[in-house]
């Protein structure tokens, strides 16, 4: 009986060691659906490649072009890494983002999309993924990331700031896409397309607590000063001064569903939604000078 068990045991172990060897050989080649690894990858990129295939390939695709097997069913569509064009950046429009911008997107996830938060991954893993993502576009070899925009200290919220922000909201024609109450239902909303000519909807301030690129006042400031590349949301860095940008941040906070100090002040002063037909309201005295400068410039055109 002992011999019987020993024979069974040894035969089984032998068979089981042979079989995964065959499987491993299959697994490393094209037969598994995985490509043969590129020769020029660094060890970090190789690690990132494995992680990319584990977590990202279903949406972003084998070539990183956003054409994964699930892409047809996803809205908004996955990022095309071959363009090296990213919505969430701290750098000016048209420039490459900082590593920390992409890492931050991985950690945070992108609200309203299928991109979840990858916070459970280790910091090393996120860095490995970033290294591999950069292999999809030659831009990372020929260009440097842009210089991050400066965000001045946030001033105290006042009624004047809210009124000035509302005036800007009307003057910059934010309402044309986002709607007069920020519901994302402006007259242009239905016509918007992204850089690949796919329909895209503007952000509905009344539904969300978070934005695609963060949830803090600083994140909101950064969004309209850098723009969301690849979408119709332009950068206002050349049209809006830092103080004005803060005014706009404060006003946009009054449109959101949660209770904020901005909302409390707006209620106190009886701030009503803008009337697109009327001339923009005169901003308070201390805000006059920047607004006068604004009036000399046409509103920025939406990029495609």
């Amino acid at each position, binding site marked *: 009986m002992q011999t019987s068990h020993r024979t069974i045991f040894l035969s089984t172990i032998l068979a089981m060691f042979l079989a995964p060897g065959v499987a491993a050989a299959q697994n490393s080649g094209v037969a*598994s659906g995985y490509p043969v690894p590129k020769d020029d990858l660094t060890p970090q990129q190789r690690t990132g490649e494995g992680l990319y295939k584990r977590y990202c390939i279903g949406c972003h695709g084998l070539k990183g072009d956003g054409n994964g097997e699930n892409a047809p069913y996803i809205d908004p569509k996955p990022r095309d890494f071959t363009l090296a064009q990213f919505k969430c950046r701290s750098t000016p429009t048209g420039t490459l983002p900082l590593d920390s911008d992409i890492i931050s997107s991985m950690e945070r996830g992108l*609200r309203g999309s299928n991109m979840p938060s990858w916070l459970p991954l280790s910091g090393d893993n996120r860095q490995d993924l970033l290294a591999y993502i950069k292999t999809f576009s030659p831009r990372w070899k020929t260009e440097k990331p842009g210089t991050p925009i400066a965000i001045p200290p946030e001033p105290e919220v006042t009624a004047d700031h809210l009124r000035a922000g509302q005036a800007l909201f009307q003057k910059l024609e934010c309402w044309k896409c986002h709607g007069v109450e920020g519901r994302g239902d402006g007259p242009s909303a239905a016509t918007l397309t992204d850089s690949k000519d796919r329909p895209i909807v503007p952000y509905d301030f009344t539904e969300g607590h978070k934005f695609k690129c963060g949830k803090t006042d600083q994140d909101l400031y950064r969004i309209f000063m850098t723009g969301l590349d690849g979408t119709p949301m332009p950068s206002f860095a050349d049209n809006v001064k830092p103080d004005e940008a803060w005014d706009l941040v404060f006003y946009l906070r009054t449109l959101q569903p949660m209770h904020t100090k901005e909302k409390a002040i707006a209620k106190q002063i009886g701030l009503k939604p803008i009337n697109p037909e009327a001339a923009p309201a005169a901003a308070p005295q201390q805000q006059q000078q920047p607004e006068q400068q604004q009036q000399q410039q046409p509103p920025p055109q939406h990029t495609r």
Partner: protein
Amino acid sequence: MTSPQRSLAGGLLLTSILLLLFFTPTDSFAIPVFARKYGLPCSACHEAWPKLNSFGQKFKDEGYQLRNEKDAPIWLRPEFWPVAMRITPHWHFESAGRTAVDSAPSGEQTINTSGFDLTGIDILTGGTLANNISFLLVPSIDVGSGTVGFESANVRLDNLWGSPWLNFKFGKFEQDVPLSEKRMMTLSNVGGAYQLYHFVPPGDANTDEFASLGENQLGIELMGHSEDDHTRFAVSLLSSTNGTPGLPFGRSYDGYLHLSQGFLVPHLGLQRVGVYGWAGLRPTFFLTTDGVPIPGAGRGNRSFYRAGVYGSVYIGKFDVTGVYQRAGDNVFLANATSASPSAINQPTVLPVGAQGPQWNTGTIEAHYTYSPQLFIIGRYELVRISRQVLASNPSDFGNVDVFTIGYRYYPFMHSRDGLAWHQEFATENFKGLASSGRDQRFSSYFMGFDFAF
């Protein structure tokens, strides 16, 4: 312990083991329905399905939500149906050494058998009912008897008051155990269940049928976790029914607690340490009508406990989890003796030398994830009884050693379904359990296609 007593104890244990082996559903949770809903490959949530990775664990802890504001059913395509199924057609070989056989010259012989077979089929349904409200329903069909049971049926309320520390689960669910048996990577008759959760010493009447951490339990659970899921806790209040519907036993409750902390080690991965404990009561006798026990009328409750510590270490593609567990049953429970002298039709006097058994279990399970498509597993479990049910038993009577090795190969990896080629060998040795008093060994070899769609 006399020879007849030993034979009886051995026979009882053998019967319970065989029942466990042949009727333990090998269902486990790998739910392609979630992959289909979110468009993620199986490998996003599983090291290799059904074993969760840290991302999958967080997804589960969030109430099957990615929390990207697209979790609610309103975002689903109308044709989406949150149902998946899993079954494993396989061939297996079973060997039961030193089995008592009437016609054998020595009274014992090894029984070998083999053939093609099926596991039970799992119907896995789960998802969100609304933001932060989710469900899991797992009907399971036993292919032998055709009976349908509910492996899981629960509703979850998650992130109450916006806090990840307040998540409630209500219904029937798997306890938050350190090594999930419902996500077990081994399927054979010998290797497909953890001794950690099922073992009781020979002769202990508080068997797996009455108290097992491997069984999903009925109750309510409060579970919480940090944003990154590194710190986790779960505390449950459970009916003392071992997950059996209909309140068949008594009217008491069990309590379960699990605390764990994970920490990242640069270049290695997420490590975790934790403690857990389960304590409860079971009746030692039933009120009767005409001598027939009245369901739900269990009385004379006595206690049992299971408590353990564990550590889980990741070193790149290699990971190993070690669990130590201490367990004990009250002397009345273990010896099927009423704790009340007023009990009718049931023994009220403890056998000579009766003791409350205590035992220690050690489990080491290691995995090597070559890629999401090839997963290798090895496990060693040992059980050492420190106090026998009867003082006259040899001190090592019923001690167990189980060794399991196997691998799973996934020929493709996408978000629609899953297929794995599974091979496994497992062998276990019970000390002194044969009717002759010699050791008894069981072995299983299993190979088959495990698929979920």
